[in-house]
């Protein structure tokens, strides 16, 4: 079973994402900001990360840059999941090493299709 780290400061979003990902047979772990997520990655790299952009303490993009620099940090497939829907943000995310990008709001179908596209399903 693959592990997906869900990083979002909203408890509700984490819960929705958890339910969708568990139905897709992922084991899920959660983090409420980038710093907690980074600590989780330092302990064990997940196969996938579903990543919000705007969070307190450490943003999604800061987390992504730091995670990619860690040993083994190039391995996780990172899918941004954010309300930031302008081209500049999307390009910045891709340049920082994001594999896919979901613009909120999302539904289970979008997550499923995006995860399939990046080879997670």
């Amino acid at each position, binding site marked *: 079973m693959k592990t997906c780290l869900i990083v979002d400061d909203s408890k509700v979003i984490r819960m929705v994402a958890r339910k969708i990902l568990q139905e897709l047979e992922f084991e899920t772990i959660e983090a409420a900001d980038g710093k907690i997520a980074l600590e989780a990655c330092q302990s064990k790299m997940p196969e996938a990360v579903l990543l919000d952009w705007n969070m307190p303490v450490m943003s999604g993009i800061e987390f992504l840059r730091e995670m990619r620099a860690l040993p083994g940090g190039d391995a996780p497939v990172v899918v941004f999941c954010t309300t930031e*829907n*302008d*081209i500049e943000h*999307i*390009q910045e995310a*891709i340049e920082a090493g994001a594999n*896919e*990008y*979901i*613009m909120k*709001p*999302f539904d289970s*179908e*979008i997550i499923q*299709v*995006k995860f*399939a*596209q990046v080879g997670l399903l």
Partner: protein
Amino acid sequence: MKPEDFDFISKLINEQSGLVLTRDKAYLLESRLMPVARKRGLNGLEDLIAGMRARVDKELTQEVMEAMTTNESFFFRDIKPFEIFRENILPHLLQSRADKKSFRIWCAAASSGQEPYSLAIILNEEASKLAGWRTEIVGTDISVDILNKAKAGLYSQFEVQRGLPIQLLLKYFTKQGDMWQANSKIASMVQYKEYNLLDSLLPLGKFDVVFCRNVLIYFDQKNKTKVLEGISTLLPDDGVLFMGGAETVLGISDKFKPVSGQRGVYSLTRNG
């Protein structure tokens, strides 16, 4: 809805579009036709059906057809058929059509354009191999409204996320407010035409590849056979037909046979 009303409307829809509606689909009829009734200021489905029975308003019948035959679509729907097209079919076309340097693709139920634009994206991504080639993608649908949407190439954020990888979204679409617009690179590659699959297909001309995915499932046996036989006359001996993963030609037409290892792809039986 009264059973006689359901029977009247399902018969009319079947005659005009081939779509089969069984009684367990009454909810579908109601949910799709209520907006048509509301748009026309009618009191409900009974008034709408009365109007259709009178057969004085052809536009009303057309609107009902459109409401019933419009289906949601995805970019690169099911992924695999598009991989097969890129990895197997396209290399074959490039090799076998090297002399005339042209081929034509038909999307038989183009709906709001996601399938033809997905194919246009693949051809663009392979542009270096297609330099000097003339490629044509024709998208047809029975619904004028949905074809207008396809021609406009304007999609909501929700729609572009259904199947379109983010890199391809950035490359082939521009953002316009909350919507995303297909750019000229792909828009210029697709021609759209209103077409009823139950009419003679010959005026469409010959095609090398036909996508007729998740369309025939709505047709009865007789019309499925009619459409498949019609498609077979448009294809050259090495032409291919893509159907939906859950669809089959078994027991419907002996003109096609499944291509081994390529789910949903069919070749002509006359090709051996």
